[in-house]
């Protein structure tokens, strides 16, 4: 199979890759860049565990071929922490016990992050819509919503 050259910025770092045309972004991130915080749960875009942010949008990385996003900026859960400082969402997930098994957590965080980047003051319904595509079997979602709401409130008061 003819390899395709792709250049990507992932977590603020530039990469030049040569990939098969049928290589999914999920596999490039996990297998080539060792970003295993990106999880595979269903492979058909239903569970959201592989959610990453591509050019500002939350996307299921199992549904994207790497070659399709040449030149894009990708943010994964590993890129949320900057210089040892956790993102407010990460801190809030810790604070509100929004994590149990943790397998959905990276995807949840990325969906929430994409939402807050676009809309810093979402209401509860908007939060629910943003994470509707992220399945969680442990938490019943309640503490995840509380964690995201707390970040919104904190932002508002500052």
């Amino acid at each position, binding site marked *: 199979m003819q390899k395709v050259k792709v250049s990507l910025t992932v977590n603020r770092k530039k990469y030049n890759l040569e990939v098969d045309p049928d290589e999914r972004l999920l596999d490039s991130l*996990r297998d080539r860049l*060792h*970003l*295993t*915080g*990106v*999880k*595979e*749960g*269903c*492979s*058909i875009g*239903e*569970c959201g*565990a592989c959610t990453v942010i591509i050019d500002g949008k939350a996307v299921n990385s199992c549904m994207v071929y790497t070659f399709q996003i040449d030149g894009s900026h990708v943010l*994964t*859960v*590993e890129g*949320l*922490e900057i210089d040892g400082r*956790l993102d407010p969402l*990460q801190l809030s*997930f*810790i*604070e*509100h*016990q929004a*994590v*149990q*098994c*943790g*397998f*959905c*957590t*990276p995807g949840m*965080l990325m969906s929430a992050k994409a939402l807050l980047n676009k809309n810093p003051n979402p209401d509860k319904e908007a939060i*629910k*819509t943003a*994470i*509707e*595509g*992220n*399945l*969680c*079997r*442990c*938490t*019943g*979602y*309640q*503490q*995840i*919503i509380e964690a995201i709401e707390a970040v919104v409130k904190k932002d508002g008061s500052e």
Partner: protein
Amino acid sequence: MEFNHVHKSKKRVDVYEKVTGRAKYGADMRFPDMLYAQTLYTKYPYAEIKNIDLDKAKKQTDVEAIITAEDVPNNKFGVIIENQQVLAEDKSLFIGDGIAVVAAKTAKAAARAIELIDVEYKELEGIYDPLKARKEGSQLIHEENESNQVIHHPLRKGNIKQGFLESDVIIKREYDTPFIEQSYIEPEAVVAVPYQENSTITVYGSIQNPFATQGAVASVLKEKLNKIRIVQNHMGGSFGGKDEVVSSMAARAAILALKTKKPVRLVNTRDQSIKESYKRHPYKMKYKIGATHDGQLKAMQIEAVADSGAYACQTPFVTWRSVVQATGPYEVANVKTDTYGFYTNNIYTGAMRGYGSPQVIFAQESLMDELAEELDMDPVELRLKNIYHNNSITASGQKLDSHQVSLEEVLTKAVEKSDFIEKYNRYKKEQTGDKKRGIGLSISFRGCSLGAEAIDAAGIILSLKKDGSVNLYSGLAENGQGLKTVYCQIAGEILGLDIDRINFMEVDTLISPDSGSTVASRATLIGGNAVKKAANNLKNRIKKFIAESYEQTEDDIVLKDGKIYGKKSIEIMSIAKMSSMAAMEGVCLTSYGWYVSPEISWDEEIGQGNPYFTYVYGCQVAEVEVDIKTGEINVLKMTAAHDVGRAINPANVKGQIYGGVMMGLGYGIMEELKTNQGYIQNTNFDEYLIPTVKDMPDIDPIIVENPDPDGPFGAKSIGEPTLELGAAAIANAVANAADKRIRSLPINLEQIIVGRKLSKGGGQK
């Protein structure tokens, strides 16, 4: 009682690595020269395997090894009955049976090779209904047996005939429940590494029960247990589901690893996971209940039939828990129950959160509302007349006298908080419009831990380091429920250390004490007691050392806030300094805690005895809105009151309640693994629907605390009780709203509108 570390919503000790993506799960493990394995599954649920031709597949580039049943040293394994095939030998018995496993240098090469394996089958006519499998003379799923019966648990109490004679009202009802997929978001994953250190095989992965998997792999490989090492760390959910199926995968990967002398990774896709992993048992239940006009229960007769699928797996124990819980938490003088499991050629069934209770509670608690209706009594009143109190005698003849029986308390709290009585009466009246509201409740008592299934013991090792930090080795494992944090809190409370000074090590069969399986909501209760013992052993040694070295009496010494205090609460030194000094003096700073649960008993012939040493009590109330035109059911609110003994970590307890309530909601109105002649029809989350955030009702958790004398700091269980009540509460709420009684799960729109399921297999009459 004042606590410093328990009874507090401490942050999870494993949360940092989970929010940063650093946490390594089974599929994230990488080893040099690692091979990728893939399983070929049978084409037919029930078929003779005439020939397997591997020639073409073997010639594929990058393929390193292929195994079939011939390569498996001992092909049958099982915790209770050893009849599960690692790979199908002469026949495939269900659609998820493996035929061959390929190991190749790349995942792609393994997938290609799988397609090149030629298997010649002779398709056979299977049995897909446990009631058919039960019939005398039916063909046998396992030819070595005399019948297809896996198990029969009888329970006899009093005189059932007399009980019905004394009843003014007798009703008979039938209920049924479907196969349910655990739906952990992480599919099963293992990596088997050969000849690491002194072990023949080391298996890493998403393994719920490392010791069960160790046993299975050792038995399959015909190798000694001390040569098989299982390491578990982060797990992407399990809910009972990552036991036998993972053991089977671990064994397959181990055989390939030994054959190739390379690490072998075997990771399921979602489709593979749903196809080969065991499910929650479908039940068909017949209930007959008799009561006096004033609502006193006189007699109960129950027959429950579980579909075990192709293998025994956990069926004997799952159905046993059903026996204990089938009559509900009610005093009934005359009881006859018969619970059965039968083999079929369906997907096999095993442990899933609840373990035989969600099915019978759905039936039992629906029945109580039906009886209340018949007696023209409100459902709360009928329950209050019959529920267990202190010193009540259960259906199995156990006197509940070891702990506070708090049924009335949880029931009352949930009823008051949800405004149940007022709403129930209001919704019962004629409602205008298509959208009708309803409210319903259900209650349960649940035996904590394993009960009479097996010896119930657990161990903990604590190792205090010279700087005052601690390593904690546990035999029970974190599945996501928060066990690591709870254990660190209990150890911290006794040793006077912050939980960030305690490092919970990954469960590793090399060092962790074999504590049985992390199941049955037993980790806080049984393992927590072991932590307490280990910490107390260590504390006593520290006290002795300080008393001898500093002219103190042991009774005056207190460990708190990382420091040691003596007479008149004067600070002596830090625990860190003491640790270093004690180590130099040759004091043993490693301690072992072993806890064995109080005695229990069970007479299998008549189902009498004391099956569990303590119980928890719960009540859930569901408020729904039903659109009788479209059949849409909207669960608006769930109120959940649970007695946990003592909440070691209240935020974690709430997390269990929220999660369990949502899983119960899925069971009630959404989830059903559909099978047709043994084929599974919904093998991914686009068709097997679990609740999303949009399905969420308001959830009001009520934590009730009556410390148990046998629990660590009084704590008991919460994991499973939260899930077992929802479906019944919702069914009762739907009946209250739409005046339609649905006796088949999941309750769906067709049932509301036309009174039965339109799809095949609908049980509603």
